[in-house]
């Protein structure tokens, strides 16, 4: 009876499974199939096997894109986790206007990426932007920001950090407030000062929360596209042509859909791999 009852309810998950299949599995399978084709507008498609993947391995632009994707990912994630943790813990101690501060903090990541991108263009334009004007007021030489191949990735990472650090901070804040406070009191009684208490008590206890934040930001950062496209279109030169930008250009500007799909399938594999790695890490830091 119990077994039969359990079986009788299984059909209730069917809509969710159908939805997931239609929205996630089928498009992904289609992308996988497309990546095995040599497909260009105006040319008959041809099955190419793993030809597109072999081309990836030989393509200097792909390796450059992979390097930039990873660099941007690591820079942004590191900055956001550090700044988000600091901000979250600061918020936990702030008593005054807590609701107002949280509302203000939410606003950057509520902004559409196109707005953030346009704001970055306006503020950081070396000739027209206000950033260089302000730097000039304090005697700092003007910077090229997004127009300098050596600083463009750092600048994009900082723009993303500005937008998403509050998101990490709110996750950290939620995690911190749910921790058993007696542990902190015990550490204090044992004489653990601020830095030692943070390093040996707070951080280990917050680790699962931080891993969750890292997973959420990783998925976003590895498929980061809009702000880069709006601010630099992948330039100057190829200095910000991450894998997403490269795939977009190959697909929508140069009409090589098969090759673009191969890039995106590769990137998707990286995203899945990262999520799996973080899932494993989360289990190891759970307490």
């Amino acid at each position: 009876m119990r077994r039969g009852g359990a079986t009788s309810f299984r059909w209730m998950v069917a809509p969710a499974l159908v939805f997931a299949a239609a929205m996630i599995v089928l498009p992904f399978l289609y992308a996988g199939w497309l990546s095995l084709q040599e497909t260009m507008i105006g040319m008959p498609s041809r099955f190419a096997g793993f030809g597109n993947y072999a081309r990836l391995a030989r393509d200097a632009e792909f390796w450059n894109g992979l390097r930039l994707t990873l660099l941007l990912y690591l820079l942004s994630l590191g900055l956001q986790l550090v700044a988000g943790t600091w901000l979250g813990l600061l918020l936990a101690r702030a008593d005054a206007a807590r609701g107002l501060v949280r509302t203000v903090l939410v606003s950057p990541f509520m902004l559409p990426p196109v707005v953030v991108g346009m704001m970055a263009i306006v503020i950081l334009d070396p000739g027209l932007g206000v950033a260089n004007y302000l730097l000039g007021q304090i005697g700092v030489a003007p910077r090229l920001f997004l127009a300098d191949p050596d600083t463009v990735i750092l600048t994009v990472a900082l723009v993303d950090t500005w937008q998403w650090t509050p998101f990490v901070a709110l996750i950290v804040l939620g995690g911190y407030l749910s921790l058993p406070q007696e542990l902190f009191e015990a550490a204090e009684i044992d004489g653990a000062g601020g830095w030692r208490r943070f390093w040996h008590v707070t951080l280990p206890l917050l680790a699962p929360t931080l891993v969750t934040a890292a997973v959420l930001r990783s998925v976003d950062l590895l498929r980061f596209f809009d702000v880069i496209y709006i601010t630099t279109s992948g330039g100057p030169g190829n200095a910000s042509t991450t894998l997403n930008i490269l795939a977009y250009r190959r697909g929508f500007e140069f009409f090589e859909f098969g090759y673009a799909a191969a890039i995106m399938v590769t990137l998707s594999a990286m995203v899945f791999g990262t999520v799996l790695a973080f899932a494993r890490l989360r289990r190891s830091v759970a307490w």
Partner: protein
Amino acid sequence: MRRSFIAAAVAVAALATLSAAAQGFDWRKHDGQTVTLLLNNHPWSQAMKDMTAEFTAKTGIRARIEIFNEEQFRARLTTLMQGRSTEVDGFMTLASREGAVFSRAGWYADLAPMIADKAATAPDFNYEDFGAGLRDASTIGGQVVSLPINQEGPLFYWRRDLFEKCKIAEPRALEDIPAAAAALKACDASQGVWAARGLRGAIPYSMSGFVYNLGGSYATPDGKPGLCQPATVRGIDMYASLLKDYGPPGALNHTFTQVIELLGQGRVAMTHESSNEFANIMRFPGRATDLGVLVLPPGPATGNSNPGVVGGGRASSANSRNKPAAWTFLQWATSPEVQTKLVQAGVAPPRASVFTGPAFNAWAAEQPVRRAWADALIEIGRTGTGIYQSPTDRIPEARDIIGNAVQQVVLGRASARDAACAADAELAKLQ
């Protein structure tokens, strides 16, 4: 008896006339239908959006116009057309850029049969009124893939007042431009001197005049990529050096929007930018009186003047279910009557009758700068070329490679010759 016979004959003749008229063109033949048009953000598109009520009043057809910035426009168009969507009935196209690929993909509806169909086309439409060069550019493989909606090309804009202040003569030759830039910088170090497109894929449009006027070409005589030829290298070097030495900071991320802003705000004294942007530039205070407009000056040694010119086009989708209604919109939008009105929005008319007509001339006569702009457009229509890359069907990719080579020179990472020769190797793979 005889009287009744005449009456009957008159009645038959009247009926025949009515029948012929019924078979002729009727603007309201597709009353009640809706056409969807996908357009690039352009003065023509904005003007069309403003005038849709007039179109609906005349034809009874509703026009749903979607306007996107260029990148989003291309992405959406590609997605819809690749999926053989019937959602779009017509779209903007640059046949010189994407015509070969789109035509091979079967995305264009052939307009030739509709032009020839007297029941579908207004008697005063007169296709031959469009410039021969523009008609040729929009005919691919014998099919008319689009109708010209404007005529445009890069023009040399310069601040006459700043030149006068610094006692610099109007540039008569291409080499006068770097010399004028140096003189302007020496005269007033706080004044920006030069702006031009530095964004990779956008560079060839504004650079090609430099290449051609110095005697260069993107192709060798046997049809191979020819950036590495000495005269072409000189053109690339001059364009890149102007950007590097006199351009605004961050120029490599600039396309026409930033260039026009810089010129309009008076932050730079010279640029080589699209004729399309004339109306936008004129909106800035002072520019109508202090700006000069010229075709890019010729190379002094070669005497060459081969400015760029392109005609934007409006195509009908091969997948449209409303082709007749879409054609009605297209012929209305390109009619002399509408084009005369579009001049006010800064859209250079592709019809000879409008370009030389009294309304256009009266408009141009109101300000010297308008006359100069119109004369420059007539000149580029006569002598211009729409070829901005080495021979290939993969035009966007080729322009991207050329733009990348120029960026390497601006960044100081390669000499013009090295960058050009390296680009040739890449371009050869596209042939």
